[in-house]
């Protein structure tokens, strides 16, 4: 079973890297970029047989390691 975990910074947390990327996009002349926030994507393969078990395992993984919940939010998508 394949799944994707997306970890993003909580709103209000300063993201200097996102800001630097935003500035670089502007200097490349890419128009209309209002703001950029940087995050992480994890593609995970699981042995779990069903969707609920996969989601539970990944939620646990996020809470314990993949995200720092002081500053980050996470989203789990089981792709099947």
């Amino acid at each position: 079973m394949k799944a994707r975990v997306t970890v993003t910074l909580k709103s209000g947390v300063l993201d200097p890297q996102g800001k630097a990327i935003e500035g670089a996009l502007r200097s490349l002349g890419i128009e209309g970029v209002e703001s950029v926030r940087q995050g992480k994507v994890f593609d995970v393969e699981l042995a779990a047989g069903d969707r609920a078990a996969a989601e539970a395992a990944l939620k646990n993984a996020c809470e314990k390691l993949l995200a720092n919940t002081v500053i980050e939010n996470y989203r789990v998508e089981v792709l099947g």
Partner: protein
Amino acid sequence: MKSAVIVFPGSNREGDVARAIALISGDRPEMVWHADTSLPAGTDLVVLPGGFSYGDYLRCGAIAARAPIMRAVREHAERGGLVLGICNGFQILCEAGLLPGVLMRNARLKFMCREVFLRIERSDTPWTRRYNAGDVIKVPVAHGEGNYEADEETIARLEGDGRVLFRYTSPEGELDPEWNYNGARNAIAGILSEKRNVLGLMPHPENHVDPVVGPVDGRGFFESIAATLKAA
């Protein structure tokens, strides 16, 4: 005093801190590998040294914070034992939940390797008894992620309980954004746990202990720890 320096893959300041401890206390620390599950019997002080544990993969300190030895470190802290995290060690303590908050990328996005001025906020702690509150010391920093952040409630609690031990200031001890090199909230350079037995700080007092190298402003820090453990 019996101290243990934890070595993770990618630690690189373990030799510096071990040398400083031996120089000042006369006792050489034990080096303990991260995959071990227990501390040497009778350990008084545990040190998580600086470096780039696990290459800073995922987040600084995130993987080291889940290493096998950390269970023993946590138990040592719960018993009231002294735990010191310097630089990457501070990041590991935050990731392990032994200290609140997080160290984010420096606000100016630069890796900072230079000397800074630290104001010591209080002297009634196991770590600073050989200084006076308000003293300013000059010590080096070397980090890319030292910008301390926490939610408003946590900051208010840390400040209210007097748990901010070190701040980045001018040489005269004045708060000034110019001297807060990494943009840390309230210029926080080091914080204590609730019981004050766990300390995390970004700067490296262990590098300013020997007159051969230059300034010795970090000596008082290790003298304080040695005096605390002698008195205990």
